[in-house]
């Protein structure tokens, strides 16, 4: 039997990888993937708690998150393509015009 702390440790590790990836990656696609990692780390924690406490709320939440993640990915990729058509780059550090 795998205990809750084990699940949580895995979730934290995945979340940490995702967060660090968001902070250091310059590629927008990688950035998106890291965001997905963070969302799914949260999903994993929700499922683990849900199973341990034997209530279904966590499952329902996870489906909601998955749906939102899918929508976010679709919109995000669409924006990404629009930007790429204009700037011919997907380096996030080049998109800094919206300041001041």
């Amino acid at each position, binding site marked *: 039997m795998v205990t809750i702390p084990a699940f949580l440790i895995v979730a934290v590790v995945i979340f940490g990888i995702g967060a660090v990836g968001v902070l250091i990656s310059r590629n927008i696609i990688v950035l998106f993937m890291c965001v997905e990692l963070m969302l799914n780390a949260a999903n994993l924690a929700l499922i683990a708690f849900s199973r341990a406490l034997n209530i279904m709320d966590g499952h329902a939440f996870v489906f909601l998150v998955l749906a939102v993640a899918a929508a976010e990915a679709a919109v995000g990729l669409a924006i990404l393509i629009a930007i790429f058509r204009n700037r011919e780059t997907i380096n996030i550090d080049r998109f800094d015009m919206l300041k*001041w």
Partner: protein
Amino acid sequence: MSEYLFLVPILPLAGFLINGLLLGRLPRPVVSFVACVPVGLSFLLSVLLFFGLKGLPPDARVLEQVLFPWISSGFLLVNVGFLLDPLSAVMILVVSGVGFVIHLYSIGYMHHDPCFGRYFAYLNLFMFSMLTLVLADNFLFMFVGWEGVGLCSYLLIGFWFEKKSASDAGKKAFIVNRIGDFGFLIGMFIIFWQVGSLDFRVVMEAAPTMFVAGGALITAACILLFMGAIGKSAQIPLYVWLPDAMEGPTPVSALIHAATMVTAGVYMIARSNVLYLLAPDALLVVAIVGALTAIFAATIGLAQNDIKRVLAYSTVSQLGYMFLACGVAAFGAGIFHLMTHAFFKALLFLAAGSVIHAMSGEQDMRKMGGLRRHVPVTYITMLIAALTIVGIPGLSGFFSKDEILWKAFSSPYGHPVLWALGFVTAGLTAFYMFRLIYLTFHGKGRMDADTRKHLHESPKSMTVPLMVLALLSIVGGWIGMPHLFGVTNYFEQWMAPVMSGAGHDAVSHALAAGGGDTGMEVGLMTATVILVLVAILAARKLYGQTPELSTRLREKTPHLHRLLFNKYYVDEIYGAVIVRPLVNMSIFLWKIVDVLIIDGLINGFATLYNDISQTLRAGQTGRVRSYATVFVAGVVALVAYFLLG
């Protein structure tokens, strides 16, 4: 009848709007037509209204038209309304009549000016303002006209604004008038405070019960109102703007600075005669200021060489006569002199304009001489005007001036000293007027050859107005002959309903009784005439027959001549005592207080915030990753706080 009253001022306003809005798009004949016809119609209407008024019984001679309420706020109710009574009827006749003649004259005089349309637009605006001033039925609406004529005076003095002296003169006139208007406003406030209305008829009816006769309040109100008159009508100590106003075109000098606008102060005092009769001390102030101005300006006029400046000082002096009349409670005599003065002084200015026209713009009398052969019509008409102003028996100036002198002597408010000042002034007037005539028209020509070649009589449009005004100068006084001659004084009779205010029968009786001493009146009249004749002969001797004599006289009294020539240094004194310190204080306020302190403070704060912002904006990189880093750090910090804290 009264429903047409508003048309009198509105017609010239229409002329102003048409000429003003279509500036530079109308050909000259159309501009002249649009400008002159409304003024002519105003005059015709004034004549009709005059006869309409004359048809009414003397006590009912008041026509009123209220167009609409202008200000209605609490107790303050001010109408846009017009009041026609014997006093304003005389005024609109003089203003629109003389104004029309001068409009016609201007067509010829301004013929060569590139800004023909602008000139006539201003002139029409002036007519509108002046007619509003004399027809207004309350103090505040009158003040609108009062300020309107001031504005037009400013615009027309500075008409040739590319000349610095002209634009300076315009500003001087405007600013000096503001000083007087300040007093006028305060006087108006006192009246409203005490009476609760500004309507002339209400104020005049209520004043005897609302004010303590001879009290401080009514005296203050009257003196403050008189301060406005001092500014507008160029009396000591605010007369300095009028001689400078001669920078404007000559017809403007004739219309605004001789015949109409400058007499507004006299009209205002005559209009408020009920108030002044309640304040004998204020009357005394008016009389003294008037008499002193009359003699003071006349002495300056003796030593001026610019033909228009002599006339300007003469105007100041004659206005002094009118105030002297008002000051001895002979308001009717003041208005009578106002009317005759409007005729002969307008004529003098227009004739001077004709001379200047002939002299190709030269105004210095030392460079004229012998002009009577070249400009005969101008010579004859100007001679008539000169004979009128000095008071040769039979001409209009004689009757009006003599009435003032006699009232100054005999009125219960009069005094022999006041009479003596007026008497000496009459002699001085005769001397400087004939000095002008002899220097300009007689003797040898002193102009250069080029000017001499161009000497010519003015066109018909200029000489006909001269003849009309000459006729008026001769006959204008016949309506006001003294009782002495065994005839009815129609003018006094006409003015009587306005002048003998309610409850002042005692005064009017006293004034009438003063006329009883016939022997004295004849004696004084004869003395004046003899003095005038002697003065004319002296001027003839000094400037006509033996010009070297005048040079010798000037050299014998160098200090006196320099003092008079420099106008008693009044401009210089004002400059040193008032203008210079004021300018210095303004410079201090500008450079130190405004620029250094106020601007420094505001700019300092702006710089401070700018510096702070410049520092803080470094945090806003615009990069998603740096925002994400801050965001994650924040989350970590919060989690750490809640878990560990």
